[in-house]
């Protein structure tokens, strides 16, 4: 019955309205009649009845409000009304929605990256307890890989970890997979048998390693990554148990890993660690292992660190020759996967939130202006009995509609930009590909976006409420100006804040762009254009490092290439230029005072072919380059670069000096220096040109460098045919131009500079829109004042100046406050800067002038309009 009435009430709202009206009317009439009967004059009788009753409209609202269903319907009415109001001022609505959508879209996109990289739990069991364990050495920048014997000792002596596992995999570890009709170069990783159980990785097919697999007799087994399984075996399930030929040796496939998240994701063929070079397993020189440990529950990282440092100190005492300077570094897995991206992502996130703040300030300003123009309407509504709550519902539904539409549009914008963002992060050194793949609009990200929308909506909904005048009579008085003074003050404060935030974003953006400029203006020491790099690994045991067969293969290949018309010269080395390599060697300068074994100097070392320097374009400063006979005779000559000569032969003639190599073995070799070449930033342009040692020779793995006189990739067919002529089964891989290598190595800085540049432009645009809006409104408000001034003789130029001065005041304050904030926040970005000071004067000037110019441009238009006001019309209106 009651439900039926409620539903019928919904349908018969108007009938119910009439009924309540009638009831109230009859009440008032009865009171009036009684009043007249008791002797009041009719006018007073009616007035007394009304006063006793209170506001009839409010009563009516309260009667309907007592019905839940009807309350819902009144909210629905408010929403519909809000829609109509917004549609009636499309200029306001579109500006507000677009502004907010830009802010929300950018924030959503960057937050989804931050969420994927910094917040989302990693796809491994107990991921928070997995720690990377590295060695450190004073002469090696950053964490260094671990020696096999050190790893064994750590494993035996540590007390903090449930398990310690190791794998060995640089990107150049490959083997030749011999298929029925062709060969493929596959990427191999050696892993200790417990690596997968430590990570909690369960195979999708077969099994992973058990301890017996990691013994010298049973270790010819392979676990495939899901990608390798698809690529080389087309996902054939019968691959389990199959014998495959790698470098001429038979291995049995025992399992397939799950796709994507297997870590490290770049491994294709996983093999037991005991397959490692015997020499590496028995000596304390050579550091090639990545070590992971899973902490025992309840053990803190700091505790584990102390534990490991004790072991390192013990090893340094027992093996001073090799371990004296070797320390231990513990890096939690997340940090290891995200690498150096954390400060970048945090800076981007901060800036994008600042841009969102500017967008919000803009919309707040628009809403304030709107509220100010509607003061009288609001007063009338209140006089007619609208409760404050009802007014709030109306404002709130208006801002909710704005914010939700903006949120929707922003999410679409974010969805459109995410693929670009993923590409940007993929090209960025530092982030694991599996993490980059998880940058997407998922539930937590969308929830945060929704939260931002609702928060801004409620904030904005409250804003006009504060502005609602408490004294009705005042706001109803015609031509009233009493409230504009305070309001214009709060608007100026808002716009100053907006400008201050814009300065911060602009300054950070300019700093990063300047830093990127510095970076690309670094001369790498050689010409990077028209230079192609590709890699070859010859199958063992047919070829071994520096054997005649190997030398012969590469010499003939280089000869063939150099005869080709598009190729100027070709050379070989063992690492791609501009990519960090950890090939370092200990040595001693012949004749120098002997040093303790642990204090031996250590520098970068590369083996190169005779034409390497010529191909790279490194200049021979002294002596001669290597010749073919140096390689054939395996003569013990070396060439050093200028940085090396400066550091180690200060003053002496390098060509009369020799270097002692293999110093830790019983028979050190004395190698005379035959040449000095110019420096190259071989480790990337970010690092200084390091001292380097060059040997003559070819290894089974070689990086071919080819200088061309045409587009360097166009000569690839000739290279392939040259290789095929020598060995039809020999694959080539990692083909890229050095320009690509260079741009990849700068990808992270480029991405940050570009994104921050975009945010800075966004901030500037939004600030300009804000300034334009405030000045425009102020001019309409001051129309009469301007009219009076003109009537009293002010020239148009004076009026123009008057308005511009107003703009200059709040811009000036904003800029000053902004600069202080910018300096304070610049240290946030200092980790991202390359040879750029956090108080870089050019960035400061660019930010100040950029904003001043934009502010003046935004103010000139409305100021010009003010100057052309017709004083007679201005005074007549009102």
């Amino acid at each position: 019955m009651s439900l039926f009435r409620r539903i019928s009430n919904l349908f018969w709202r108007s009938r119910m309205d009439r009924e309540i009206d009638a009831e109230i009317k009859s009440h008032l009439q009865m009171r009036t009649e009684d009043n007249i009967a008791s002797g009041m004059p009719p006018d007073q009788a009616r007035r007394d009845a009304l006063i006793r009753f209170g506001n009839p409209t409010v009563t009516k609202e309260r009667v309907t409000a007592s019905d839940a269903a009807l309350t819902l319907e009144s909210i629905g009415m408010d929403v519909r009304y809000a829609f109509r109001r917004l549609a009636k001022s499309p200029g306001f609505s579109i500006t507000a929605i677009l502004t907010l959508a830009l802010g929300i879209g950018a924030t959503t996109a960057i937050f989804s990256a931050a969420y994927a990289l910094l917040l989302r739990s990693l796809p491994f069991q107990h991921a928070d307890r997995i720690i990377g364990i590295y060695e450190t050495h004073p002469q090696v920048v950053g964490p260094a890989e671990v020696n096999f014997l050190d790893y064994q000792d750590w494993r035996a002596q540590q007390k903090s970890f449930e398990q310690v596992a190791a794998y060995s995999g640089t990107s150049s570890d490959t083997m030749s997979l011999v298929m029925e009709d062709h060969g493929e170069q596959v990427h191999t990783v050696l892993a200790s048998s417990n690596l997968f159980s430590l990570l909690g990785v369960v195979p999708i097919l077969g099994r992973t390693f058990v301890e017996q697999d990691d013994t010298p007799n049973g270790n010819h087994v392979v676990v495939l990554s899901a990608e390798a399984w698809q690529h080389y075996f087309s996902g054939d399930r019968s691959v389990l148990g199959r014998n495959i030929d790698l470098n001429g040796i038979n291995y049995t496939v025992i399992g397939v890993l799950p796709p994507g998240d297997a870590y490290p994701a770049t491994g294709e063929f996983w093999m037991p660690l005991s397959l490692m070079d015997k020499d590496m397993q028995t000596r304390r020189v050579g550091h090639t292992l990545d070590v992971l440990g899973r902490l025992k529950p309840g053990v803190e990282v700091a505790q584990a660190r102390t534990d490991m440092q004790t072991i390192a100190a013990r090893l340094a005492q027992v093996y001073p020759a090799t371990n004296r300077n070797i320390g231990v570094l513990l890096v939690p897995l997340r940090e290891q996967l995200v690498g150096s991206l954390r400060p970048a992502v945090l800076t981007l996130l901060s800036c994008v939130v600042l841009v969102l703040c500017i967008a919000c300030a803009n919309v707040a300003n628009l809403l304030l202006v709107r509220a100010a123009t509607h003061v009288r309407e609001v007063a009338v509504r209140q006089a007619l009995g609208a409760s404050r709550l009802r007014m709030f519902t109306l404002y709130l539904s208006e801002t909710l509609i704005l914010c939700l539409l903006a949120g929707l549009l922003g999410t679409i914008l974010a969805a459109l930009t995410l693929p670009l963002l993923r590409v940007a992060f993929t090209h960025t050194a530092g982030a694991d590909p599996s993490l980059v793949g998880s940058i997407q609009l998922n539930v937590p990200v969308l929830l945060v976006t929704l939260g931002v929308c609702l928060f801004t909506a409620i904030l904005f909904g409250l804003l006009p409420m504060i502005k609602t005048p408490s004294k009705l009579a005042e706001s109803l008085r015609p031509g009233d100006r009493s409230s504009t003074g305070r309001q214009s003050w709060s608007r100026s404060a808002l716009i100053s804040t907006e400008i201050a935030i814009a300065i911060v974003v602009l300054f950070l953006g300019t700093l990063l762009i300047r830093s990127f400029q510095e970076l690309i203006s670094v001369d790498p020491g050689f010409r990077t254009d028209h230079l192609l790099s590709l890699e070859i690994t010859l199958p063992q045991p047919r070829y071994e490092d520096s054997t005649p067969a190997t030398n012969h293969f590469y010499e003939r290949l280089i000869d063939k290439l150099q005869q080709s018309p598009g190729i100027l010269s070709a050379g070989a080395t063992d690492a791609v230029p501009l990519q960090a390599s950890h090939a370092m060697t200990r040595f001693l300068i012949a004749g120098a005072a002997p040093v303790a074994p642990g204090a031996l100097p250590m520098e970068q070392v590369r083996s190169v072919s005779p034409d390497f320097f010529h191909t790279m374009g490194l200049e021979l400063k002294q002596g001669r380059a290597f010749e073919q006979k140096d390689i054939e005779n395996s003569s013990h000559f070396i060439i050093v670069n200028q940085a090396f000569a400066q550091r180690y032969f200060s003053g002496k003639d390098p060509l009369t000096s020799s270097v002692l190599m293999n110093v830790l073995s019983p028979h050190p070799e004395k190698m005379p220096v035959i040449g000095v070449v110019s420096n190259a930033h071989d480790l990337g342009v970010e690092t200084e040109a390091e001292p380097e040692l060059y040997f003559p020779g070819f290894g089974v793995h070689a990086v071919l460098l080819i200088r061309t006189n045409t587009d360097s990739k166009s000569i690839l067919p000739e290279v392939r045919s040259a290789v095929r002529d020598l060995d039809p089964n020999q694959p080539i891989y990692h083909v890229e131009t050095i320009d690509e290598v260079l741009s990849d190595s700068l990808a992270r800085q480029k991405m940050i500079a570009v994104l921050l540049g975009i945010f800075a432009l966004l901030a500037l645009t939004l600030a300009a829109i804000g300034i334009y809006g405030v000045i425009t409104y102020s001019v309409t408000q001051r129309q009469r004042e301007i009219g009076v001034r003109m009537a009293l003789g002010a020239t148009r130029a004076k009026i123009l100046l008057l308005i511009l001065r107003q703009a200059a005041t709040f811009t000036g304050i904003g800029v000053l406050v902004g600069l202080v904030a910018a300096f304070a926040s610049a240290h946030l970005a200092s980790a991202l800067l390359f040879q750029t000071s956090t108080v870089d004067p050019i960035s400061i000037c660019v930010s100040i002038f950029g904003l001043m110019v934009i502010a003046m441009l935004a103010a000139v238009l409305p100021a010009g309009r003010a100057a052309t006001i017709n004083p007679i019309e201005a005074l007549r209106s009102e």
Partner: protein
Amino acid sequence: MAKTDIQGTLDLLILKTLSQTGELHGYGIVLHIQTASAELLRVEEGSLYPALHRMEQKGWVNSQWALTETNRKAKYYKLTAVGRKQLQEAEKSFEQLVKGVRAMLRYA
């Protein structure tokens, strides 16, 4: 003269009025409360109607339009069985309240 707008109390006053008079319109309820309380209580007239509407929703009272003695159309409210039970409960809880308040006052 005490002004009362405590919701429960207003409900009680309305229910009691209707139980004493049988059938009455809103204005009549206001007058009855005033006279029956010897001018001690005065109901805010506007707030009567939301309360009446709410009580009708809950089924405590029902209403119908009829003519007054002065031949004016007015909406007459009447207590239902549910309303009668509600009145008993409201009276009981009000007694408790009064007892409690009085005890507090004496204690002080």
